[in-house]
């Protein structure tokens, strides 16, 4: 079943010069059609300004399409009334961990979403407990968000989404401001949620290594969807990726360079284990 269905989506916004006069429109998302299956882990790649965040913000109704349609769980997102009801099903995690925590304590922050949904008070504490344990943050329930590390803050943000019991997690570069260990812990949490809870994940990123672990990789360039396939398929197209200012995972690149030099290696090697195996099998 398709949990997200995007058909011919166009999003335009007006640009204004310094005097406030309209100086034309910019097409941030250009005729994108995309389907995401329930339970999938999809990574969206693209350099800055490729329209990947804009695309994701249509799925939970933060932005409205100029043309085209967006369906979430078989329901038209732009026509949802009131609009916040679609956001229960599609939680969104943002880049800056500080700018998405509202509560004065971890517990209060996680409860913020369900509080807005009007979940009865008796059920709120249970939801918080459950969400915190799924995100692995139970020990910090009473902490102040200011006392947490970046990775921990992002996990609190994830718990805040889980407390709304969403079917989809939209993650807008959730690891961009984290150190390597923070990145690792956030991604581990997200993969576990995808595997164990069956939550569909849409991960926007520009770290190729993160995309390599996804079920499907989508590449966007200048508002257009230009590639859509398994990581192996997408990362085999090294030249095309380079053309839209993207790199490929380090091992893929190394394998590609070796192949250019005449070694007989398969396309789309994703990690060092695959590369090592391929090299050992050369003769």
């Amino acid at each position, binding site marked *: 079943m398709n949990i997200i269905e995007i058909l011919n989506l166009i999003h335009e916004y007006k640009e204004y010069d310094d005097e406030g006069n309209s100086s034309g429109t910019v097409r941030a998302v250009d005729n994108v059609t995309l389907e995401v299956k329930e339970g999938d882990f999809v990574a969206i790649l693209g350099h800055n300004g490729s329209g990947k965040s804009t695309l994701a913000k249509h799925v939970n109704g933060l932005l409205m399409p100029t043309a085209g349609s967006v369906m979430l769980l078989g329901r038209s997102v732009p026509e949802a009334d009131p609009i916040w009801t679609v956001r229960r099903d599609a939680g969104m995690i*943002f880049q800056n961990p500080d700018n998405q925590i509202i509560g004065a304590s971890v517990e209060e922050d996680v409860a913020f979403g369900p*509080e807005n*949904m009007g979940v009865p008070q008796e059920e709120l504490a249970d939801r*918080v407990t459950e969400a915190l344990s799924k995100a692995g943050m139970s020990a910090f329930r009473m902490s102040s*968000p200011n006392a947490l590390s970046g990775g921990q803050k992002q996990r609190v943000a994830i718990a805040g989404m889980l407390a709304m019991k969403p079917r989809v997690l939209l993650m807008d570069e959730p690891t961009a401001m984290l150190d390597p260990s923070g990145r690792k812990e956030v991604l581990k949490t997200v993969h576990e949620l995808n595997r164990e809870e069956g939550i569909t994940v849409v991960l926007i990123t520009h770290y190729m290594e993160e995309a390599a672990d996804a079920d499907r990789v989508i590449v966007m360039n200048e508002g257009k969807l230009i590639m859509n396939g398994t990581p192996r398929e997408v990362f085999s197209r090294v030249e095309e990726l380079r053309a839209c200012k993207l790199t490929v995972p380090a091992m893929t690149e190394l394998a590609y360079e070796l192949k250019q030099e005449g070694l007989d290696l398969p396309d789309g090697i994703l990690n060092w284990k695959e590369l090592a195996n391929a090299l050992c099998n050369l003769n």
Partner: protein
Amino acid sequence: MIRDITLGQYYDADSVIHRLDPRVKLLFSVLYIVSLYAGRGILCFALAIVFLAVIIALSKVPVKFILKGLRSIVILIVLSAFLNLFLTQGEVLVRFWIFKITKEGIRIASLMVIRIVLLIMGTSVLTLTTTPNDLTDGLERAFGFLKIFHVPVHEVAMMMSIALRFIPILIDEVNKIMKAQQARGADFENGGLIKKAKAMIPLLIPLFVSAFRRASDLAQAMEARCYHGGDGRTKLHPLKYHRRDVIAFLLQFAYLAAIILLRIFLRAFPVEFL
């Protein structure tokens, strides 16, 4: 760590006063101010002092913390004492040059000082024993009735609690910008007042820009979590009155009644200098 400092002047302790509902303490602040102005004479002030002393003892807040609050208004106290002392007409006790100290002057000035000191100490009990967030919650509920007059009570309370959450983050940001500007030769320490004020401009502009960016991010994050105003919102820890709150309410009103009765009684049977 600047990020861990408690905001406002909250003093963390486990006491009956800390556990009281913030609304009770809010009302206490108001009633106590009323009592200080309703009361006349030394007896009333003695009662006010005893009542406050009991509360402070119960709150387990060290007296020096409460006295700290007075530091900022020392000038106000001295000035009002000075004016009352020299400008009150009446029976002259001492006279030198153009100044004269009267018996009434001493009386009024000393009562004035006691009143201001009690006022500050009494109201600081609220902020010392209530976390800023409890205080916001209390304000939201206490002024909830204003909603019928279309006052956006929930929104104001939400803004207050968000502001409280962002204060440590913005302090961090100021430090970061300051270091960045100093690294490029900005000088925040030297020069006169005007030069120092001018030096703040390269600090404030980036701070404002970043605060607006944060605000916009936060608004999106709140919307993404189904925020749509106060309607239909539930609370994880709603404020509820307990037995101790009811007792505290009753005690407050008993105290105010005692002050008023004392005043009426003293007017009916005047006693010299009370």
